[in-house]
């Protein structure tokens, strides 16, 4: 007898509408804009492991490889025409220099296969050199504005990262913390995509200036799909 398995590679995206544009929230923690064949990922924090290693914490040096492998798998599946890395793509300014040869190869392959855009983040204000792609601090595509750090009072249609949203959901006497998208009909904050990028609870005050009165949903990343949960039902911590 074989154990009941769940399909591994056909995670169901959750449809989501922002400023009238139809988008898909992927359980992998990425955003897919099918009409534009555009894939958006936030906060890769590549080379975070080696950044810590420099300070004496010898974290496993596999985070960059793991993050890029997940991204590459998405690219193979979706065949995007454009990939936007929403800032904090490298954990520090020297990150790109420390890329291992194999990881550099993967990254260069990704930036060559589609139009690749580096949005500047606070960890990486300058674009990485020698790995392809072009850089900008912000981008407007149709009615949507793409930037690293969300702005209080931004026009409707903002897509941002930076905050690493995570949500804690309780049921059946225990709780579960997962990465999530934080969203209301006007704004979407993406979860961090990087393997070592932690999460900040969406109930943290950092979110309350963006989403007034907790009138927003956490779209929680599960194994198969993304589950919307109203902020009022979430737990702290």
């Amino acid at each position, binding site marked *: 007898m074989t154990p009941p398995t769940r399909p591994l590679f056909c995670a169901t995206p959750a*449809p989501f509408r922002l400023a009238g544009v139809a988008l898909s929230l992927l359980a992998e923690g990425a955003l897919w804009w099918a009409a534009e064949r555009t894939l958006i990922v936030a906060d890769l924090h590549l080379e975070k492991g080696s950044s810590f290693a420099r300070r*004496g914490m010898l974290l496993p040096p596999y985070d960059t490889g793991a993050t890029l492998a997940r991204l590459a798998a998405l690219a193979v599946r979706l065949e995007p025409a454009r990939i936007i890395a929403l800032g904090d793509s490298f954990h520090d300014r020297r990150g790109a220099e420390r890329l291992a040869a194999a990881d550099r190869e993967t990254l260069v392959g990704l930036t060559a296969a589609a139009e690749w855009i580096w949005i500047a983040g606070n960890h990486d204000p300058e674009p990485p050199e020698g790995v392809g792609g072009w850089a900008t601090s912000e981008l407007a595509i149709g009615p949507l504005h793409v930037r690293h750090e969300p702005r209080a009072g931004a026009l409707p249609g903002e897509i941002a990262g930076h905050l690493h949203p995570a949500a804690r959901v309780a049921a059946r006497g225990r709780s579960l913390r997962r990465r999530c998208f934080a969203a209301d009909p006007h704004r979407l904050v993406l979860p961090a995509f990087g393997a070592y990028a932690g999460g900040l609870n969406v109930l943290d005050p950092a979110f309350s200036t963006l989403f007034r009165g907790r009138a927003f949903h956490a779209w929680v990343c599960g194994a198969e799909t993304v589950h919307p949960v109203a902020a009022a039902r979430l737990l702290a911590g």
Partner: protein
Amino acid sequence: MTAQPQPAAADRLLPGRFLDWFARRGWAPRPHQIAMLEKAADGRSVLLIAPTGAGKTLAGFLPSLVALAERPPADTRRGPHTLYISPLKALAVDIARNLETPAREMALPIAIETRTGDTPAHKRQRQREKPPDILLTTPEQLALLLSLPDADRFFGDLDTVIFDELHALVTTKRGDLLALGLARLRRLRPHLRTVGLSATVSEPDDLRLWLVGQTAGAPAALADLVTAPAGAKPEITVLDSVNRVPWAGHTTVYATDEIYAAIKAAKMTLVFVNTRSQAERTFAELWRVNEDALPIALHHGSLEVGQRRRVEAAMAAGTLRAVVATSTLDLGIDWGDVDLVIHVGAPKGASRLAQRIGRANHRLDEPSRALLVPSNRFEAMECRAALEASAAGVQDTERPLPGALDVLAQHVLGMACAAPFDAVALHDEIVSAAPYRALDWETFERVVDFVATGGYALRAYERYAKIRRGADGLWRITHPRIAQQYRLNVGTIVEAPHVKVRLASRRGGGPLRPSARVLGEVEEYFVETLSPGDTFLFAGTVLRFEGMRDNDALATRTADEQPKVPAYAGGKFPLSTHLAAGVRAMLADPDKWSALPEQVADWLRLQGEVSVLPGGDELLVETFPRGNRFYMVAYSFEGRLAHQTLGMLLTRRLERARLSPIGFVANDYALAVWALGDLGAAFAAGRPAIGALFDADMLGDDLEAWMAESYLLKRSFRTCAIISGLVERRHPGEEKTGRQMTVSTDLVYDVLRSHEPDHILLRATWADAARGLLDIRRLSDMLSRIEGRIVHQRLDRISPLAVPAMLEIGKEAVAGADPDLMLREEADDLIREAMGEAPA
């Protein structure tokens, strides 16, 4: 081995002023004190087992006091002669105070000082320059001292090391670190003498082995043993309540009046409980009935330190009538004239009970008095078993396990901080420590590699190495900063992340205003289960959780009397194997039931009529339908941790047998599993046979597969990552708390497991979880014990014995539920509730 009193021995071994001092006090040296002097004269290391109140501490120190009193003065600086290591800071301070009395009264020229984490930096610096003759300290401070470049000079005059409460140390990672430190001390001082002190130990040889250096390939070396005669047997009674003993749960509300009456009749009572929430509950209940306004206080580890110190001072001053306490008051220190110990809830272990009862009446010739108050019917049996074990003098302390590898990694770095090391010599030194005597060279090499560069197959961090081997073949730290980092993070005590509970107020419906008042700390995971508005008991009052702010949990006082969140976190200590066997034997033998409260005996008789009672070495498994579900209850008595592991593994098997298990609950006595499939019918038809379901092979692949996913393993990994130095608690110049750790060890775990599953730190994590949170050894012992002895009883409805476990369903977290299913249910529920509100 018991010491024979030698009338002339005291005169021969004790100098005149000691004999005079004893005489002035009206004492005679006790035989075990004399025996300790004789062992010292022969240069022998020794384990002293003596009951509380037998003058154990003096016996341990007497040889050192005599040697120091007789030592000719030196004109050069001398290092400490005697080192005393205790598991508690407070105990070290207390012992120092107790030693100063004889030293002063005999005018001995002996400097006695303590050194703990609380000792100010200038005093520590001074101690290094001008060491005391007797230094009382903790395992962490010893590790720190040994990592200093002048460790060999500092310990150059060391003669004796005394380990207090040794049984409590050896089963922990602190004990592992201490054993490694002792191995280093022995290398610095080959003729070092060790003294172990303990009141309760099940296997003295484990401790005797620990105390002396081991040699590879040679038979185990043991320290000598001195045993003091036991004191008067304690008078223990189990409360036979006039009220109904609850079927299940962990409260003793039913017995509050009786507990109060006992307190009232005694002079000073210690009320021991197993968990913090029980302490809060019992304290609140006692004050509810406290008509005479007796001074009754509360003491547990989560309370603010100042408040705890005030309670301790009041106890010592004799101004309290009772203190409700958790294990924070288990060890060592004399707080006052306690004449009664009440144990609320079952004691979980015979030695644990003995230790706690020892807190009452520190005089050998008078019996201590104790009252056991079971909180449910199984506990009534357990209390009875504990009472019998106590009468028989049984000890059931845990046995030490092989040394942990994360601790070894910390030690290796510490040794590199002290001086460049040769790997072969360091390995030889380490395997002389009992917990590491079986450490093979290859594992040791991997640990050194881990300390150096992380030990990854992908050798990415050579340039960031912490230690490096030089051309001379010696390993040394690459930068002085590494030593600084090591010293900031030394030690093996890793607290679960805590948050402060801060009192807040809201005046006249205004905004919430945090106050400066911190009531104490609770585990982060507890706060995570709270929603704003939930009420819970803390620091003796009902509080309303308002939310998190700046890493503090804000709470307001509320008039509610009943907290909504019961917050029973299971006790840390599972039922001991010995008491479990006692309970099983009691169940199997109706002749023994007369010793139980009548209502408990009735309950067992009813069980015998409706179902069966299992024989002493049998496992009873009952199945019955209820509602639209099918239940299975296994009465295995192996403790909550082992049962939880068993529950996880059984549900995996039942899932494969397509019986659709939904969840399970585990307590110390039994495991209940429920499913959509008819479990009873399936077992009867052999699909699967009950024997196959409980087959020990579940500890193979199933366990591996489940453990890899388990959050329990992530918890263990966090501990190992911190102890081994992979992540830091504190970085020079920054103070980090557990909450603010800049990288999530859960994420690191996921990455490491998928890329290098056989990494040395994952091995350490596995060993840690197996010995701690999963209790695999015990589960494995049980599975082999019950093989071929499983009694499956198919019932139409729930049996009396099953009721306690069934009552816990719904109260306890349901383990084993699929997290994604849980998420979906939560989401669906919401979508139904707020249709159209969700932006979809």
